[in-house]
């Protein structure tokens, strides 16, 4: 009896350990970073933040730097690793820049969305991005108020940022490649005399579609923007 119980417990323990240990290899991690980078680059909207990937990549870069410090100077491996580090740093920086640019561009709408998020819903912004967005918003408002006090006559309406700052254009077209087969995607008509129709997206195929149509598929990873 005691033996069986022990065996079962041991197996349960092993299972949960295995689940936690699903760590990506460095190559897989960088592939995930590149996917996130491309999606963010080509999407008109701010996508869900991938801070876990960012943190892991930063750790990866630290490891590589430490390895390089220990290596012999002039070793060819050093040059190659440096190039790889530069490439990774470029992709990571570009990814974060893409996000920051969108946050600055659409800040009233992004902050409004954050306010109305339900308890368990994932935030688009990382905590650091959220802080940045709030500071950026406060900064812009202070700027406009300062100017208004100095220059504008009092009978004119104060600027409503939520109304005057344009929203992301979800109708813009994007190129995508299909990773997981999708069936019956509803495509809305462009003109009045067209009717809505459905398409099946075959794995590996490429398409040019309205971002709005496939937005949830980007979030789930079923398609990749290119």
């Amino acid at each position: 009896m005691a033996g069986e119980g022990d065996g079962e417990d041991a197996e349960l323990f092993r299972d949960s350990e295995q689940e936690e240990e699903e760590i990506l290899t460095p190559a897989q991690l960088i592939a995930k970073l590149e996917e996130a980078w491309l999606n963010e680059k080509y999407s008109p909207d701010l996508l869900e933040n991938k801070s876990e990937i960012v943190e892991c990549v930063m750790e990866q870069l630290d490891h590589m730097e430490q390895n390089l410090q220990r290596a012999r100077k002039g070793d060819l491996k050093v040059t190659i690793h440096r190039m790889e580090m530069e490439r990774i740093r470029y992709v990571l920086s570009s990814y974060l820049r893409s996000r920051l640019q969108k946050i600055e561009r659409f800040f009233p709408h992004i902050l409004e969305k954050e306010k109305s998020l339900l308890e368990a819903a994932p935030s688009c912004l990382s905590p650091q991005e959220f802080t940045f967005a709030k500071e950026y918003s406060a900064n812009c408002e202070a700027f406009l108020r300062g100017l208004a006090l100095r220059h504008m006559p009092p009978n004119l309406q104060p600027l409503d940022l939520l109304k005057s700052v344009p929203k992301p254009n979800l109708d813009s077209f994007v190129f995508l490649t299909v990773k997981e087969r999708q069936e019956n995607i509803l495509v809305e008509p462009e003109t009045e005399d067209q009717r809505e129709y459905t398409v099946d997206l075959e794995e590996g195929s490429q398409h040019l579609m309205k971002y709005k149509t496939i937005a949830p598929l980007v979030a789930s990873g079923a398609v990749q923007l290119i």
Partner: protein
Amino acid sequence: MFCEKAIELIRELQRAADGQLPAFNEDGIRQVLEEMKALYEQNQTDVYDRLLRIRSLRWEYGSVLPSGIRFHFAAEETEWFNQYKKSLATYMRSIGGEGGLDITQDMKPPKSLFIEVRCLKDYGEYEIDDGTTVLLKKNSQHFMPRWKCEQLIRQGVLEHVLS
């Protein structure tokens, strides 16, 4: 022509004999207010446009702007710029967990590891990654790691020599 209607209304009032009140020109007033609104909105757009350009200066030049440019800022714009670069610095420091990442560097995909640069003005000593320092004197040429040169190239201190 802007303000024509407004001037017309004022003249109308002035032309009326002392004490007499001309009929309330509702149409005229409405036109003037519409003009004011259009001017106001255009002005808002221009003001916002300037702000966007100021923002891109931080990314082009770095956190210290050449004095010639700073001279053109309104007081509110200077304040905005200072707050912006503080915010940006806080954000960049917080990336990853330790030390952060300067995302105003690495603006272009890396092509080669080292590049040939010529110094356009006297800059002084500049430390490269492995601890060695380089003396950046006007007209001197160096073969340096590309990532160290990026910002100096944008600031006009160094020039990429393409042979």
